[in-house]
């Protein structure tokens, strides 16, 4: 069963008079339950925009997005809020942590918003923090920790709720390879054991190789798509690199 279905999605930026940026220019896509999908593409290719549309924090220009059978492009404001709260988990590119709350409290935030019984909050936070190796900085404030730690905090916040669909925008962008691996393994585990569907934007082929499927975006369109199938990760990794070379140059150069 598919959990996400996108039909001919378009998102244009800019007012009528000025220049229009076609950030997403007709994307159709289906994601099955329990999939772990990576989205790759050059900087400016529309990855964040796509994710923002999926996460209902941005409106679409045209097209439809069905999540869990529900067309989110037709939901009202309050329904959208409820929908986000109950079904989605995000990891934003710029973390979106509250600077007045400690790391611990930032992680607890989505539980609080979901009105979880206060008794369970602490243990849940400790558990997820332990898995992401940030248990020792729980009492610190965001401005007192490194970029990577912030990112892991953002991940913890998104994962703690066990949402149906997790949307992650470059979750490993600021991490060293060890932390990145820890995070990816956690996500993989959530995908495998907790039946979470994950959609992850990434620049980095290593991260993408943890996924079951990789989509390649170019100029707001899907350029290519590859499946991992039964091949080992190493092989899949090389496959991804091949596509990237085909698309033109090292991704990081485009920035």
């Amino acid at each position, binding site marked *: 069963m598919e959990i996400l279905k996108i039909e001919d999605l378009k998102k244009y930026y800019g007012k009528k008079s000025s220049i229009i940026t076609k950030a997403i220019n007709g994307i159709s896509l289906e994601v099955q339950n329990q999939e772990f999908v990576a989205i790759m593409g050059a900087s400016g290719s529309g990855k964040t925009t796509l994710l923002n549309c999926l996460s209902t924090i941005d409106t679409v220009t045209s097209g439809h997005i069905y999540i869990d059978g529900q067309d989110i492009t037709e939901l009202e404001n*309050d329904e959208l*809020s409820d929908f986000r*709260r109950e079904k989605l988990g995000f990891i934003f590119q710029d973390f*979106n942590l*509250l*600077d007045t709350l400690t790391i611990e*409290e930032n992680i607890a935030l989505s539980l609080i*918003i979901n009105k979880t019984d*206060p008794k369970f909050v602490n243990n849940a936070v400790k558990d997820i923090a332990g898995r992401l190796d940030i248990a020792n900085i729980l009492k610190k404030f965001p*401005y007192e920790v490194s970029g990577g730690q912030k990112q892991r905090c953002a991940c913890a916040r998104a994962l703690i709720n066990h949402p149906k669909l997790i949307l992650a925008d470059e979750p490993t962008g600021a991490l060293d390879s060890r932390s990145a691996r820890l995070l990816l393994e956690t996500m993989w585990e959530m995908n495998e054991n907790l039946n979470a569907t994950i959609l992850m934007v990434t620049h980095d082929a290593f991260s993408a190789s943890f996924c079951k499927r990789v989509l390649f975006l170019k100029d707001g369109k899907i350029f290519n798509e590859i499946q991992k199938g039964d091949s080992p990760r190493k092989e899949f990794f090389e496959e991804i690199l091949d596509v990237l070379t085909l698309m033109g140059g090292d991704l990081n150069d485009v920035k």
Partner: protein
Amino acid sequence: MLSKLSLRNVKRSLKDYLIYMVTITLSFSLIFSFNLIAFSRDLTELSEHMENFKYAILFVSMIVIFVVGWLINYTMHFMFEKRSKEFGTYMLLGIKKKEINKLFLLENIFLGSIAVVLSFFIGTLFSILLSAIIMNIFEMPYQIALSIHITPILVSLTYFLFIYIFVLLRSKRRIKKMNIYDLLYLEKQNEQKMSKKTRSWTFILASSLGGLGLLLFDYAFKIVEEPTMMIPFFLSILLLGISIYGLTLSIGEFLLNYCLKHEKIKYKKDNLFITRNFSAKVGTMGITLGTLALLSTLTLLCLNVSASFKDAFENQVNTRIPYDIVMNKIYSETGALHPNIQNKDYQKKYQESHEYIEKRVGIKEELIYNIYVKSVNIDDAVIAKKLSSVNGKLTFQNDLFIKLSDYNKLQKMLNRSEITLNENEYFLHYYKELRNWFEQLKKEDLNVEINGKTLHCKEMTDKNYVSSWNSSYYLLVVPDEYVNNMLIENAINAINTEKEITTSVVEELKNKVGNLEITSSINGEDYTIAIDTMIIRAEVLAQNRSAITIFSFSLTYLALVFIAVVGTILSIQTLSDATKYKYRYDILKKLGVREKEIDKTILKQVTMNFIFPIVYPLLIAVITTFSLNRLFFNISSEEHTYLYSLGNSIFLFLLIYGIYFLATYIGFKKNKSE
């Protein structure tokens, strides 16, 4: 090049600059309006008679300058913070601090000059408004007089210059001390935690100092008659001030810690979000919040003392003459007064004056009533004799009577309740100062015999006694039929006019009636006595425009300035937070919090910002009222007047405060939805 860039930046942060401009203009306007009032003809004339008054004005203007200067400094700091990132980036790009300082300076001088020009207009408006309000509070006839003097303008300009130089020097030092890192990350540093121990100690110390301060304050008013009361008084003020700062600094953290310790509270609803934001606020601006609390306390105290003084003043006038005019008809059957009083001349004058009053101000209602005596023989005056026996110092002449119907009409003219009497009862109304002696008298001492019947005193009171009812200190109200066989001692006309009586009408009336001098003979010697032929309330009010009035006036003015400053700073603070919070609310929204919930959180937050600085001040105001009452107890109109004064002051305070709150909340919500 830099100035062009900076100008563009100013344009972009126009909203912040608007807040800044409004604050500075309002501050200058407050100072200017104060000077306009202080140098106005009314007050300067008054100050000729009262040397102390000059010092009072000087003292008040010092406080005003200090407080307003602080407000301007605060706003400047606020603008600086807003632009810290911009300045940091300039420095990163290699622009010298000196140049940035010059830029900031020029900008501020430019904006300041505009504010000064604007404030002359707004200040004039303010002064008119303020005078009207204050004059209205004190029931003084006020005519809008737009007299532009050069003195207040020059004095105000000097003040502005003085404040500005000080403030600019400060911001220069601020820029000098900054490094790039601080400038770039100024916004992010929001936690300056006190250690747990310091916090607890601060809390305990501040609370006990507060308690001690309140006790000392009470003690000062216990020994209010003695000159040494100033020592505990000022000491208590000092202690209270310290405790206000201490509590403000520690209580935010205290609250936070309490909340954090209890998971049930911490993880419930938006508690965590709110307390965290709040404690961050106290952490960065504890001193400012402390000052706001201090100013709030002063506002409440000023209002309270001023209200009590005003009540005392009003009471003084009301005891003397609550009617607009009281005229003496000078008509007597007793012959106790010299026969020449009842001369035709005076009756003619009386008639003329009466007509004149009717023509000039209109008569809304009037009552001509008689004051009676039982006989000319003072031995018949039972109450007078009894009183003289308990109080050796004073001799009381004769008992004066009034008809129940007249008495009730007189009361009705003042919107006071009427009384009823049974056949054999009378009512005794006396002047407050006689209370001690009347209370010494026994019930049967007060029995009065008229026409062979014994009348019991139904009730006696000193409440709302009016001394212009008659010329004595007490009055016996009897059922109408008892006066039939009595002699008329005097006839009096109490008048309420339709229009207000202005100073010029008072002058004209005085000229019309003139003074009546009568010659009375006591023990064979002739005495010349001037008789009050006409008492005019407006005149009495004007005459009593004494130190008390001026004092209350200054206090009210100070209170208005203080609350304006408190409200403005809280508004600026909260609105500037709005931008910061917008980001935070966005995150909450992204995480799935509904719009309505966010609005609720906003309301809670703004409310918290506004409530926090006034909780302790309200407490202090309530407690000190009881101490202050020791001072006002004897001169206030009623036993519980101090509670009314307190209620009134709190109401006025909350009213103005509420307006600021509402405006801020609306602005905050608007900012969020932009």
